[in-house]
């Protein structure tokens, strides 16, 4: 069996879908191939227990590029992003930091801990927003190829330089500090209270093998501020029905533009002929032929598994071999019989309508990281929780709740152990940690799902369970994502492209790699 397409996209994660949608919108006969029975990759919602919708992997939205929402007409296809402005960080002594949508109330809440910090909060956000505005054009465009001396690339590089040259030196300096420094150092410059620093440094470690005091955590922090909720920089939302609701909307948009989506269609290899990609072989033995083949998978699978490494330049193979994945994040998702109670805020449910940070001090989070440095998962993990059913009643049966817990640190490679043995022990550790802060927590648990880095790799395919399809670290970003010379969505194989989160700008439910790759392929 053989069919001819203009474009074949391997992988129906959100970037594959976005890429397929843009190519179909440009008039290309496009098919997206997904190995599982549902699209979405790591952005899915699954009903693991009747009435309870689990956001198995990713669980919130912010970085999704606003232009993609418009250009793919996602609202028409069901995009609905619910607000989650609240942020609750329990402290160790029963105190807490509870921030919400009202900046004046936030002032007073922070001032409860420190009046200086309350004032600095506004300065901090103003400064961060300036940096975000400065880098936004670089995030949303194809980066220059610094290995090229072609005039077009030199001009592209010059325009990046000119853009940075136009920025306020103070902003450039802060940008450099963020890109190279630690989240904790940066926060020390603004704040004096531990619970505030702890609450804010968490964006500096999500998904990455760094602690708040590691150089490089500043970059991760900045990356997580690159998004919006209704134009408000750094704010997050929650898609109706979970992130699976979001990828279903993208799939509908893609199909409306004429893109075909095939489920249960895992690709075993890219078929090449005379150094050119001409099609794909499916795991079921079928072959599909196309002019352009685009891999939405991570760099390891794109370069080392879908094609023969021997067909690639040695330098590239070496770079990809050394590309760091080292996933450290897990998910533990709960079906709950009711809402947890924080002892000093009895009866309060508004504290759950947003993110909840279990990471009361910078030391707590750094110690959680220490465990991972030496090859084990955290004894007292950092947990980013969201009880999405308090925002979207359709996530659980009436009166019951669903809780998504993002857990760090849980290194992919355990020293002297393995995840198949440790999976439920991790679940117990997370449950015990939550029970420390919410004493009634364990009594509420109706069902628990533990998703380790190994499970992420097995189910979604993300190498070593890295949620960003490759670590966020200086040598793996921008000019170098995923490799110098191959940061513009092309590959050395003619007709073979990449569009996954392992390309610029990177992971999170962002869609930018999928869109920018389509731009490169078809000049859209």
């Amino acid at each position, binding site marked *: 069996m053989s069919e001819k397409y203009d474009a074949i996209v391997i992988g129906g994660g959100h970037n594959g879908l976005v890429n397929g949608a843009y190519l179909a919108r440009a008039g290309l006969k496009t098919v997206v191939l997904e190995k599982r029975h549902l699209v979405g990759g790591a952005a899915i919602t699954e009903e693991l227990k009747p009435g309870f919708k689990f956001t198995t992997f990713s669980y919130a939205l912010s970085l999704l590029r606003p232009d993609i*929402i*418009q250009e793919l007409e996602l*609202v028409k296809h069901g995009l609905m992003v619910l*607000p989650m*402005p609240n942020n609750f960080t329990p402290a160790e002594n029963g105190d807490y930091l509870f921030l919400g949508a*009202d900046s004046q109330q936030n002032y007073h809440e922070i001032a409860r801990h420190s009046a200086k910090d309350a004032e600095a909060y506004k300065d901090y956000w103003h400064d961060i927003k300036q940096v975000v505005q400065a880098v936004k054009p670089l995030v949303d465009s194809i980066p220059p190829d610094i290995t090229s001396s072609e005039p077009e690339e030199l001009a592209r590089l010059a325009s990046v330089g000119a853009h940075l040259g136009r920025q306020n030196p103070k902003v450039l300096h802060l940008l450099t500090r963020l890109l190279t420094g630690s989240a904790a150092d940066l926060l020390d410059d603004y704040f004096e209270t531990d619970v505030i620093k702890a609450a804010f440094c968490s964006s500096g470690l999500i998904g990455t093998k760094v602690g708040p005091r590691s150089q490089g955590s500043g970059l991760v922090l900045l990356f997580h501020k690159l998004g919006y909720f*209704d134009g408000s920089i750094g704010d997050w939302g929650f898609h109706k029905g979970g992130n699976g609701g979001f990828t279903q909307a993208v799939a509908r948009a893609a199909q409306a533009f004429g893109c075909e989506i095939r489920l249960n269609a895992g690709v075993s290899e890219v078929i090449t002929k005379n150094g050119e990609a001409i099609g794909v072989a499916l795991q079921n033995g079928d072959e599909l032929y196309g002019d352009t083949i685009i891999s939405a998978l991570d760099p390891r699978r794109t370069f080392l598994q879908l094609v023969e490494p021997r067909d690639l330049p040695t330098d590239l193979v070496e770079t990809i071999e050394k590309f760091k994945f080292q996933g450290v994040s897990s998910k533990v998702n709960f079906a709950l019989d009711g809402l947890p109670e924080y002892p000093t805020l009895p009866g309060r449910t508004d504290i759950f309508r947003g993110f909840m940070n279990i990471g009361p001090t910078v030391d707590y989070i750094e110690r959680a990281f220490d465990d991972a440095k030496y090859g084990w998962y955290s004894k007292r993990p950092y947990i980013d929780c969201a009880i999405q059913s308090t925002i979207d*009643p359709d996530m659980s049966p009436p*009166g019951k709740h669903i809780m998504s817990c993002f857990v760090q640190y849980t290194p992919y490679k355990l020293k002297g152990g393995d995840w198949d043995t440790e999976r439920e022990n991790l679940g117990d550790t997370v449950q015990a940690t939550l029970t420390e802060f919410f004493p009634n927590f364990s009594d509420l648990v109706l069902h628990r799902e533990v998703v380790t880095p190994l499970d992420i790799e097995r189910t979604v395919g993300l190498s070593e369970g890295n949620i960003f399809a490759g670590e966020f670290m200086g040598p793996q970003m921008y000019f170098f994502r995923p490799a110098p010379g191959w940061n513009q969505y092309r590959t050395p194989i003619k007709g073979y492209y990449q569009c996954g989160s392992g390309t610029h700008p990177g992971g999170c439910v962002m869609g930018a790699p999928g869109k920018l790759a389509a731009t490169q392929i078809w000049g859209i």
Partner: protein
Amino acid sequence: MVKTTPFYPRLAALSETMLWKHWSGYAAAQNYQFSTLFEYFAIRSGVAVFDTSPLFKYRIQGPDAESFLAGVLARDIRSCPPGQAQYTIWCDSDGYMLEDGVVLRLSDDEFLLTAAEPNLLYFSNLIGRRRVEISDISKEYGILAVQGPHSRTVLAQLTKTAADLPYFHVTQTKVAKKSVILSRTGYTGDLGYELWIKADDALAVWDALMAAGTGYNIMPMGLWALKMARIEAGLLLLDVDFASAKHAWVDGQRETPLELGFDWMFRKLGGEERPFIGRTAIENEIKNKTSRWKTVGLMLDWQHYDQTYENLGLIPPKDTTPIEEAHSLYDAERNYLGYATSLMYSSLLKRHIAIGKVPPHLSTPGSEAYIELMIVHRPQYVRANVVRLPFYDPPHKKR
């Protein structure tokens, strides 16, 4: 002291913000929570309750009630049988819009009417020799609007009749053992109901409603959330999108039903012999095509909006709070075209939207207009396109 509605004791306890507006002399919450969007999205994805008690409420009763209303209301009330409700308007004899409201027809000769302004004197003066009684029952009843995709599920727990009450139908039933009037109406453009509750029964019904809705995150919504929803639904608001002709000084302030987009009410006018106030003027306006405006949806060009702000070194604001003051509209050469009201960023649609008044020849969908925005103390002109109203019309609204 400002007046309070029968639900106030419960609402006051739920108000985090203590932001109250005076609406017809009553305290009405602008919002309850610090995040107005929680309240707004309860309308679109869960269930929200709005206390609409400050509306003026009239009972119109008697053997001639139908013929009376057929003559004073511009929309034909005879097409609304008992057990149904109708959105309606009334005009002056020059064919200018006075007000709008909703009529509930409880029986052949009993109607309830809501209005934003007092109208007892106005309607009473028009009774003449007809056998009709009009009474002001504003204080007798509180009204709760229960709106959102889960409103039916929640109400059906309290009264089975809610489960299959069709769109714009009305019935009398019991909730928490109290008699209520239940209509499938609202001002949000979503699935929704309104409950007329005797003032003395207000708290009992409120408590039952909240208990039934707990599992669906039921919450009260304030005026801001309601206004956001009504703009998306393309529903006009007196004193924002139009002014009553009654106390206007000049015709420039007045608008006709045709100019406001109510031409659909008059499609069968030719086949009926119903004299009503303003009929001749409306017929002439249709025949002579003398409408000065057409009311349209405006959707701002998102790229042009963002670029306009970014070119000035600013982060483009996406404020979801409706701006009720008018903005001028221009063509590409900066000639004045018309005006826009109810400008807001729709968090649902991810676009700035507004209700526009443009010359009829520029009212076809896709037509272009530039809206004047003051940015850093200077006027800027952002491209917008005409779209059909409503902006948002989910299938579950009528299902």
